[in-house]
């Protein structure tokens, strides 16, 4: 090897290592910041109680409203998105597969939907709510977040279905299966581990999103009891507490951030493990 090629090799190896280190450093720094600021405020009380009077001024209580609200919202939205995404993803891969151009168009359209900022979903849903005279509610939040995460879920499912070999499809049809049977009995089973990953990915995106629920789900100090109650969410809980001038309240925001990060991390890891098992 010439000297130049040797240096080139060395330079890019060092560059790769540096970039990788930078990414790890940023993640570690985020975790360190929220843990160092929030750990002292993290207690059983904060996890298990609704905010009491003057909570945002340093009063007692916890963020149970936001934890429960976020779970309700994300689980509801994931179920809703799943109900829509499963047939769409199967339809794309069973029926549209013959129409190559249309297929590319539909995938592009879904990717565009994926890329739309969540505040746009929130604003869009809000205008609809105003039109129908609806209040902020858990139900409205679920629909909005469901719409936000459906394209993600569809494309994630689509990517899983794309990996199914054409031979399996041929095997299914040659046994006399209809398209519907092929979709729901063969493709669904084959793709199931990948679908679990897709749902968890979308769930993780849904639970962490603040902008789409800002106008739609509202905010409250209570755990919602039905779909028409407004609901608090962890991202908004963090937002409101961080806005407080009182340091104790700010630290509680970091405690909430620990909770949210922990949830998202657990979901990501579960999703990865499920995907590997496939």
């Amino acid at each position, binding site marked *: 090897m010439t000297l130049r090629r040797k240096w080139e090799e060395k330079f890019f190896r060092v560059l790769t290592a540096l970039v990788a280190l930078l990414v790890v450093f940023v993640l570690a720094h985020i975790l360190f910041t929220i843990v160092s600021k929030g750990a002292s405020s993290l207690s059983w009380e904060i996890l298990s109680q609704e905010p009491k009077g003057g909570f945002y001024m340093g009063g007692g209580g916890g963020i149970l409203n936001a934890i429960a609200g976020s779970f309700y919202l994300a689980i509801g939205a994931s179920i809703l998105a799943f109900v829509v995404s499963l047939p769409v993803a199967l339809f794309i891969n069973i029926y549209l*597969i*013959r129409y*190559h151009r249309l297929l590319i168009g539909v995938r592009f359209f879904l990717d565009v939907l994926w890329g739309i900022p969540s505040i746009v979903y929130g604003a869009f849903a809000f205008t609809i709510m105003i039109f129908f005279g609806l209040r902020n509610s858990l139900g409205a939040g679920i629909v909005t977040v469901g719409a936000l995460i459906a394209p993600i879920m569809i494309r994630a499912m689509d990517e899983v279905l794309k990996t199914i*070999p054409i031979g399996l499809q*041929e*095997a299914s049809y*040659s046994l*006399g299966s209809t398209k519907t*049977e092929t979709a729901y009995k063969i493709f669904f089973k084959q793709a199931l581990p990948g679908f679990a990953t897709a749902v968890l990915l979308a769930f993780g995106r849904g639970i962490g999103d603040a902008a789409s629920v800002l106008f739609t789900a509202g905010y409250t100090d209570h755990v919602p009891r039905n779909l028409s109650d407004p609901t608090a969410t962890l991202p908004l809980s963090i937002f409101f507490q961080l806005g407080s001038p009182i340091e104790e309240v700010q630290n509680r925001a970091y405690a909430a951030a620990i909770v949210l990060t922990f949830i998202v991390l657990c979901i990501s890891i579960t999703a990865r493990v499920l995907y590997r098992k496939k």
Partner: protein
Amino acid sequence: MSSVTAIPEISKDAAHFQVVPGEVPVLNIRNLNVRSKNAQILKNINLVVPKNKITVLLGPSGCGKTTLLKCMNRLTDLYSELKLDGSIEIDGEDILSGKFDITQIRQKMGLVMQRPFPLPMSIYDNIAYGLKIKGIRKKSIISEKVEKHLREVALWDEVKDRLKTSAQRLSIGQQQRLCLARGLAVEPEIILADEPTSALDPISSRVIEEEFLKLKDDYTIILVTHILRQAKRLADFVVFMYYGEIVEYGPASEIFENPKTDILKEYLRVGH
């Protein structure tokens, strides 16, 4: 072309592809052409497949053997770029006419592919699947048939203690036999086999070949292969294809001992 009873219209080139006297025709292909966007894959195919015999489609890679096989149960529907014309008659019904329920036509044919693709379910359910979509619900009948067809492909003794485990855990040779059994369970008339031993080791290949020799008592078998020795071991009739056309068709002994065309002579010479 309109009358079913009329003698098939075939080009004069195709005259010697007619059924051999004394054989019962089961599948009748007339003037079949298959085109893709920029090529003609099959050219004017005329072929009569005799019942309870092994008909081997022989020829070099890319000559259209697999496409011809896939036309027979219309798996070509999956590929939008393929355009078919002509007719393929099974039991007097033209399956290309679009009048018939394609799922029922496909159940008349069991497909064995180059590589086995077990369904993502247990060994038992792989066989039961076809029965269930045929509308058979009674558990005792299903269990009975699962055993019968697993025995038919000599797999029963190997798997009888783990019928509920995933079929994807079987060895590839076992999977191929399972796929054959799965196809047989829907009680087809014809077995379509597309190079069924190409992914298998010699011993598993031999097992499959022996199965075919036994199965021809009950089924008509159409086997695609490019392995000359396999064709010689199994074939009753041979269809030699080259560049999308049938070059020669006849009883195996005639094709192998008395080839007429130069291209077949060359193929037989190189293949040895």
